Structure formats: C-alpha cells, structure tokens
C-alpha cells in the first residue's frame, strides 16, 4: 500500500473504523471502558506495525515503551502533582522516545534472533526495575492513586468511560493520521525497501541503520503514549504492562489482524480483546485456549491475518 505507485487518497473503507467507533459510543454505552481499552491497544498495535510490518524489525520487547509510558504517566500523576493529561502524555512520549533512541541505537546493529533476544531483555530489565523500585512504581502491588485532571480543564474522567473513550479515540486518530502519512511518504516507501531487501538499500545509498533507529524511536513514542493512556483511563498501573506477556499479546493481536496492512492493527485488538472479554466470562480458566486456537487457525490458513482473508474473499468476488 505504500510506495511511489500508491494512491494516498483516503478510501471510503478507511472512514469505517471511525464511524464504527462513534456508533459504538452511542449504541454500547455500557461497554465504553472496554472500548477505550480496545482503542489504546489499537494505538499500541499501530506502533508495532510501523516497525514490524513496514520496517521488518522483529521484536518481543515492545512492551518496554508501553510500560515506560504507563509508569511515566502514573508517576507524574501520583508523585509529582503533574495531573494535566496532555502533560502526562508528553512526559510519557518523551521518555519512551529517549528509551527508543537509546536502545534502538544499540540493538538495531543486530538482526534476527539476536535482535529478538535483545528486545526481550530490555523489557525484562524494565519489568525488574518496576518490580524493585517500589517507592516509585508500587512494585508488585501496582501504582494506585494516579491523579488525572479534567481534559482541557473541562472534561472529567467519568465512571462510565465516556470521556476516556473520546480522549482515546482522538489520540488514536492523531496516531493513525501520523502513521498513515509516514507509510505513504517517501520514508515509508524506503522502510518497505529495507524490509524487502536491506542489502539493496545499502547499495542505493540509504543509511539503513539510522533510518531504522528513527522509525524505532517514533514507534516507541507512540507505544509510550498508548501506555500513558492506559494509566490515565485506569488511574492505576501494574506490572502487567511490562515483560514478555504484553509484548506477546500485542504481537498476537497484530498477527491476527494482519501485519503491515495498517488496518490489521485495528482488527486484531478488536477481535483479541472482544474474544478475551467473552471467553474470560464464559471460561475463566481456559480463555487463553480460545485465543491460541484462533491464532493457530489464522497462522495456518490466513497468513495475512484476518484482513488477508478479507482480501482473498474480495478478490474472489471480483473474479466471479
């Protein structure tokens, strides 16, 4: 979808997620908290898609940035008196960007399994820091009492999740817009080139390493913002935002939806979190079995994820 041949105009189908989100707000008022959570994970998945789907950076440590963003917003709200939600987002974005830049500059010199292990190591280290630094993070008990002021001084976070839903929706919209601009830009085309054939990109004069570091930093920033949103919506942050599990979860969500397709990052979290919500109620002990089965089906029969299935169906229909 990216590249010099791609038409960057917004297609009608691209309005659907936003129409669906607004419809959801009015039609499902009892599920707005779940809706806000889905929107947050869409943003997180988008950030992962940027590096995995477009730049080909395989990672098991993307939760490092999500978790850092979550704890930064939490620490600002609980310890420093900085309660303005945008200031918290900015703080989370800045620290996540710094971490992305610093770690990216080191690990992106490696590839394949080494890179995968290093990304995992980074989130594992952060998890351990969060676990031990109890005065700042609350340790295993989590960080409660995160204060978040009304948005623009007007919209207080309410119990029903109305404010949270719209706040997350607007933030996601901005994130989606930025990602979309990037993937249709020459930079996006260049990233696709790196994913396809890094050796060739070197041979056409692209400073591949620095280009990857930059996109990794941008992706980390977005993931940090997603983490901060989660903290603000819950007014709490726990250790489950760091480590292998959330990294694996977001990877599963993206694979379910379809990697490198932009809207796979929308479909995956919706399916995953709705399935999780339903299965956890029906089968509290075995809910992950259902997710696992779904993933196996998608990986075996739909390598492009759910959007890949949609593509095939659409093509077949056109061929008939």
């Amino acid at each position, binding site marked *: 979808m*990216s*590249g*010099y*041949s*791609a*038409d*960057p105009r917004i297609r009608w189908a691209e309005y659907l997620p936003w129409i669906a989100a607004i419809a959801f707000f009015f039609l499902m008022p009892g599920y707005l908290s779940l809706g806000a959570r889905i929107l947050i994970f869409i943003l997180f998945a988008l950030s992962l898609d940027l590096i995995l789907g477009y730049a080909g950076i395989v990672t098991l440590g993307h939760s490092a940035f999500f978790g850092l963003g979550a704890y930064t917003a939490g620490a600002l709200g609980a310890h420093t008196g900085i309660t303005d939600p945008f200031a918290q987002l900015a703080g989370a974005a800045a620290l996540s960007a710094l971490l992305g830049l610093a770690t990216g500059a080191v690990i992106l010199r490696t590839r394949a399994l080494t890179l995968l292990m290093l990304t995992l190591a980074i989130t594992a280290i952060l998890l351990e820091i969060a676990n031990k630094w109890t005065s700042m993070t609350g340790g295993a008990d989590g960080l409660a009492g995160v204060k978040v002021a009304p948005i623009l001084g007007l919209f207080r976070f309410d119990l029903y999740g109305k404010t949270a839903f719209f706040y997350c929706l607007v933030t996601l919209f901005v994130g989606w817009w930025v990602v979309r*601009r*990037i993937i*249709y*830009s*020459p*930079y*996006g*085309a*260049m990233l*696709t*080139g790196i994913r*396809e*054939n890094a*050796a*060739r*990109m*070197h*041979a*056409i*004069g*692209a*400073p*591949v390493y620095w*280009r990857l570091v930059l996109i990794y930093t941008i992706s980390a920033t977005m993931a940090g913002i997603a983490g901060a949103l989660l903290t603000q919506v819950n007014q709490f942050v726990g250790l489950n935002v760091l480590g292998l599990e959330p990294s694996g979860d977001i990877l599963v969500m993206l694979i379910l939806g379809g990697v490198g397709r932009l809207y796979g990052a929308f479909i995956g979290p919706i399916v995953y979190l709705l399935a999780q919500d339903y299965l956890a109620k029906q089968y509290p002990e075995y809910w992950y079995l259902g997710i696992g089965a779904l993933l196996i089906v998608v990986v075996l029969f739909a390598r492009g994820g759910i959007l890949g299935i949609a593509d095939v169906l659409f093509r077949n229909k056109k061929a008939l």
Partner: protein
Amino acid sequence: MYSLETRKLCKSFGALTVADRIDFRLEAGARHALIGPNGAGKTTFVNMLMGALAPSSGEILLGGEQITKLSQSTRVRRGLGRTFQVTSLFRSLSVLDNVALGIAEREGVARRMWRPASRHKEITDEARELLSGLGIADEAGTRVADLAYGKQRLVEIAIALGLKPKVLLLDEPAAGVPSHESQKIMMSLERLPSDIAILMIEHDMDLVFRFARRITVLVQGVVLTEGTPQEIAKDERVHQVYLGEQSHA
C-alpha cells in the same frame, strides 16, 4: 586522476588470500572488463570497492579521494553504483518503485515523512524515463517478482543508473539470462551515458569483447595482466589460465 583506483588492495580470510595487492585504475568514461576464472576474487573485489567488504589492507580512491573507510551508503552518494551478480531487487514492489527508491535516495527525498511519495512527480517521471530508455517502460506497474529474469536484470541496471553514478560496477549483468535477452542487455549497456566509467565483470566472453575497451584479468586474487581486448586475446598466459578453448581471434 582516475575515476576509480585501488592501491595494493588485499583481502584475506584467515590463511586464504582472495585479493593480493591489487593495483587497478579505471579512467573517466572507461569501458573496462574484469575477467577471471571462477574463484578468481572478482566479486570480492567489487564488494571491497563498494564497501560491502572491508579490505585487509590497501586503499581505494574514487575521483582521487580516499573512500577506503567510508560506508557503503556514503560511497554510493559519492558516485559509486553497482548491480548484483544475483539479482537483488525489491521483489514485492513494482518496477517503478524499485527505480524510484534509488532516485529518491539520490535526491534526498527518501528521508521525507510527510508529503505522499506518489506526489513527488519529479521522482516518478525520472524513473519512467529511465525505464523507457531501457525499453521496459511498459512494465512500470508490474511487480518485480512477476517479471521475466532478463527484464529483472534491466531493472537492476535502471536502479543503478537512477543513482547517476560516476562509476558503475556491473557484476555479471547478463548472468542467467538467455542469449536473445542478453543481446538486449548488451544494447542497453552500449547506450549508457559515455561519461560514466563502467567496470563490468562478466563470464560471457562475447559480451566482454564487444563491450570493453580494456580488460583486466584476475587469477587467484592477483592481477595477471591488463590490456586491450586484442592484447588479452593474444596473451598466452590468459589462454592457459582462463580462456582455454574459448579464445578469440
């Protein structure tokens, strides 16, 4: 001053020496071929020139300037382009995108993040012009993976030309291509701008003798001899170590 020059260029892998004190000069606008039997170290030599492989010792100069320590991408930006022995393209991208990526890199457009790539008309127009010059403009929208191999070789050349190199290294441009298509490649090569110095590595002696005005023979990492095609064809040592039965009159 030479377009490209190496001085005592060496490369060893442990005890194995694959390039041994190679002194090589490429003049401005040269049409030069590097030949040698399999394992002579030709591709190693090109990889060292490009910066894909670090030499063990020696120097590389591009337009009289030291580039020995420079990265591959910096060398390309200074005017060194190459094609690969085994086609190395962006297979899932269109032919146009393959060429546009290189042009965008040359023009400094590739690092831009905001304006859509397809709105950079100057890039796509130049890419189409290049493809047209090589006779594959009709394939601009075709995915490279769906392209015949001979045309893929032309895309390789188009990408390299899109970088507007001062020196172009062609690593077996007709490798794996049926003879009728290799003639098309040869015709395309003959039409390349005369100000580009070209070093071609090729096994196909018909192509070499048709294209090159000078030939260097490399054997086991050592320059055996250098001369005009006529001189090389008459050189007994070349016959012995390389040409064998294929000798040209």
